Structure formats: structure tokens, C-alpha cells
């Protein structure tokens, strides 16, 4: 039986040499956490099942920095490495794979040119193509929206791009289903309302997507402790849980989270 995965996520600002890991709150305020490859190596040694790097830099020199971050990490980390953020073309995709990434995560570019999902899947396999969906809760779903019952009443979720700065008007759940059809191997589903809040994952949103796709869903946004991860695994079909802040600031170690889950009957790799 497959184990549920714990995935530390490193948001990287690559405007400095070696890059630095930062963490935003609800996609806005920023806090510094460490050097990407060093943190990734620590999480690997603690038992992370996979590592995600997201490039949140706005500058243009980042591509070379990202390559060197991936290369250094891949020499020390022997679990799958996913890289996203700032991937604008198939050429960018090739460059991160060439540096040693195992998967790419696409968001904005996939929304603007969905065919890139199929192109990545074709060349590197579906498992290498993760589609990131940043979802924002909205009130009063109309006829054309997928309605989800939440604690705040019936809602729908709008898909955002450009790192949460712009909205698409697209239904996030419908988009996840479309991404699967195009060849995505996984959905990285982030609740923008919960991101950085420590309030726990958005369970209704997560389950709504899990119910509608046949590919693994990674729950993301809002993880504040191991209990939140336990809830995500016991109340939704999520295959993996992604967390950032709880690991960066020494509140939890990956092995502590896994022990907590194992003691409560969740099948994890320990």
C-alpha cells in the first residue's frame, strides 16, 4: 500500500547568490528562513518524501541561480525533487530537468497555454508534470460554478495566477479536472485563504478536488501542526500534504510529524 507523503515546500527568492528560502503569509508578507539546498538536505535527512522548490523571484537572472540550487540539492537529496515558479516555456522546463529536477510544477503558464501540460507529459511522463492550482474561496456560486459546502455556506473557488496577484475568473476545481485530462500527473492544490495562516488545510476544497480527479492531490496552504496533516489525511483523499512554515521555523521536524501520524494509524514512511 502506498504511504501518504509529507512534502516540505521551499519558496525561494533567487535574487541573491545561492538563493534564500522565504515564506509569505496569505501570499504577501515575507519572512526569511534559510539557504535552499541546506534546508532541503535537512528535510531529506529528517524523512521528507519529496521536496518542492518554488521560485518566487521577480528578477530575470534567477534562471541560473535556480539551476545551481537544483544541482547542489540533487547531489545531497535522494528523494524526488519538484521545481516550479517562473516556468514560462518548454525550454524552461528542459532547463530545470537538465539541472536535476524530477518534476516540474506549472501554474500561470499552464493557465495561459494549457497545451504545455501535454507537452511536458509527452516528453517526461505524466508523473513529471505537477499542475499547481491556487484557489480562492468565493461566495454565491452561480449555475456554472462547482459549488462546495463550506463553514461559510456554499462557495466556489476561483483560480489565481501570477503568484496570487491576479485572478482568472476560472473555476479552480474545473481547472484541476481539465489539467488531469491534459496529462497532469498530480495536482498541487493551495488554498489562498489558508496559506501562511496556520489555521489548517481547507478540507472541503481538498475533498472536492480529490473526489473529482483520479490523480494524486497534494493538500497545501494553512498547515500549522501535525494535527492539521492528520485531518487532511483522515478527512480527505489527499495523497500528500505540503507544508512550509512549520518546518522552516523549527516548530516541527518532518520525523516528528511522521511519528505523530503513524501513532494515529496513518500509513507513512518512517
Amino acid at each position, binding site marked *: 500500500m*502506498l504511504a501518504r507523503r509529507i512534502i516540505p515546500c521551499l519558496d525561494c527568492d533567487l535574487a541573491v547568490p545561492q538563493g534564500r528560502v522565504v515564506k509569505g503569509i496569505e501570499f504577501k508578507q515575507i519572512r526569511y528562513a534559510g539557504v535552499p539546498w541546506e534546508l532541503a538536505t535537512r528535510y531529506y535527512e529528517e524523512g521528507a518524501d519529496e521536496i518542492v522548490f518554488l521560485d518566487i523571484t521577480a528578477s530575470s537572472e534567477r534562471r541560473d541561480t535556480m539551476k545551481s540550487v537544483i544541482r547542489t540539492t540533487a547531489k545531497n537529496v535522494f528523494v524526488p525533487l519538484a521545481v516550479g515558479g517562473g516556468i514560462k516555456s518548454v525550454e524552461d522546463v528542459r532547463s530545470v530537468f537538465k539541472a*536535476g529536477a524530477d518534476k516540474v510544477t506549472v501554474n500561470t503558464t499552464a493557465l495561459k497555454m494549457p497545451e504545455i501540460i501535454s507537452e511536458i507529459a509527452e516528453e517526461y511522463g505524466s508523473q513529471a508534470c505537477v499542475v499547481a492550482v491556487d484557489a480562492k474561496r468565493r461566495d454565491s456560486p452561480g449555475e456554472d460554478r462547482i459549488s462546495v459546502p463550506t463553514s461559510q455556506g456554499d462557495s466556489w473557488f476561483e483560480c489565481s495566477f501570477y503568484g496570487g496577484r491576479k485572478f482568472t475568473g476560472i473555476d479552480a476545481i474545473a481547472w484541476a479536472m481539465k489539467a488531469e485530462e491534459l496529462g497532469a500527473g498530480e495536482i498541487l492544490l493551495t488554498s489562498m485563504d489558508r496559506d501562511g495562516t496556520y489555521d489548517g488545510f481547507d478540507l472541503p476544497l481538498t475533498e472536492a478536488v480529490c473526489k473529482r480527479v483520479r490523480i494524486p492531490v497534494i493538500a497545501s496552504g494553512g498547515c500549522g501542526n501535525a494535527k492539521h496533516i492528520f485531518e487532511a489525511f483522515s478527512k480527505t483523499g489527499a495523497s500528500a500534504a505540503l507544508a512550509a512554515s512549520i518546518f522552516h521555523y523549527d516548530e516541527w521536524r518532518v520525523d516528528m510529524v511522521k511519528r505523530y501520524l503513524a501513532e494515529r494509524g496513518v500509513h507513512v514512511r518512517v
Partner: protein
Amino acid sequence: MTIAVVDYGVGNLFSIYNALERVEAQPELVTEPEGLAGFEGVVVPGVGSFGRCMRRLSRFEGVLSEALDEGTPILGICVGMQVLFERSEESPEEGLGWISGDVIRLPRSVLVPQMGWNTLSIKQEAKILEGIGEEDFFYFVHSYHCVPKDRSVLVATADYGLQLAAAVSRDNLFAVQFHPEKSGQKGLKILENFVRLARC
């Protein structure tokens, strides 16, 4: 200790290269068949479709057969395991046929691909799995699985709706469906075992 990694133009070989370096092998990516002579061990990686792998691997078929006959340890990984079999439901191309049997699609009852960490059920003692137990996890990513005709080659299975072949071995030929280079310390242990086998 020199280990060749056959670089036949599929997928990314950095992971396997880095992992072999970590276990103190001296890996070399070999892009031409004539470059394959004189290594102590050969790794055949593989990602993507069976047919695409076979089409690109075919020019290495002769030298790989020679290496196999000479007793050089060979390790197939993922689709690099599947191509050792006779054929696959995935593509019309013939496999190397070194192990008799077919490669078939995972059943409809499970999520395809199998992607993630799974444990092994060990069927027989084998040097390649020295130091590996049934509580250890390995990283799998695949949509098809191998069905050996001769069950005696089967070293370990994994439970994914059915018992699928996770590791096979016959004389100097070894193959794993999972990715040892992406399976943490235990994966590195398997590569270390392979390198040790190549050394003796």
C-alpha cells in the same frame, strides 16, 4: 570502481549519476555503444514509454548482450527493468527478451500511475537486497508492470492492488521497478549492493 550508466537519450540521468557517486562508485554516462566496454557494472535506466526506450536502446543491444554473457553485473531501473522482458502492452516494439514474460498495464481498480512510496514483500534472499527489510519504503512511478514467466527470478513484490514484480534477479542480471536513486538511504543501500557485486 567504474559503473556505466547507459545514456541513450531518455530522461534525466543526474539522479542516478549523483546517487552512484554518493555510494562511491565512479559513474560514467555512456552515450555510444562502443564506449560500453570495460566497465565493472552497467546501469540501464529508463523513463517514458517502453517503445521509445526500446527504439533508442536498440543500438546498444549487441554490446549489452556481450556484457551480460561476460558476466558483467547489469542493473535495470524502472522502464530499464521492463525492457529486459519480451514485450509490453504499451508499445509494439519488442523488448530485449532476456527475461521471459510480458509487461502489462496496472489494473483499472487502482490509480495509475502508481506514484509514491511502497514497501516490498521479499520472496527470496538476494545479494541485491542485502540489508533491506519489509518495513523499508521505495519510490515507485509506473503505469505498467512486469510479469515474469519463470517465477524463480522474482526477488521481491510490492502490493498495489495486486502483487507486482518489484525486483528480479538472475545470475548477473538485476532489475528493480522502483527508483533506488530516489528512495532515500535504503535506495542508496541497493545501489551500494550493486556496486559491491560489480566489484567482486
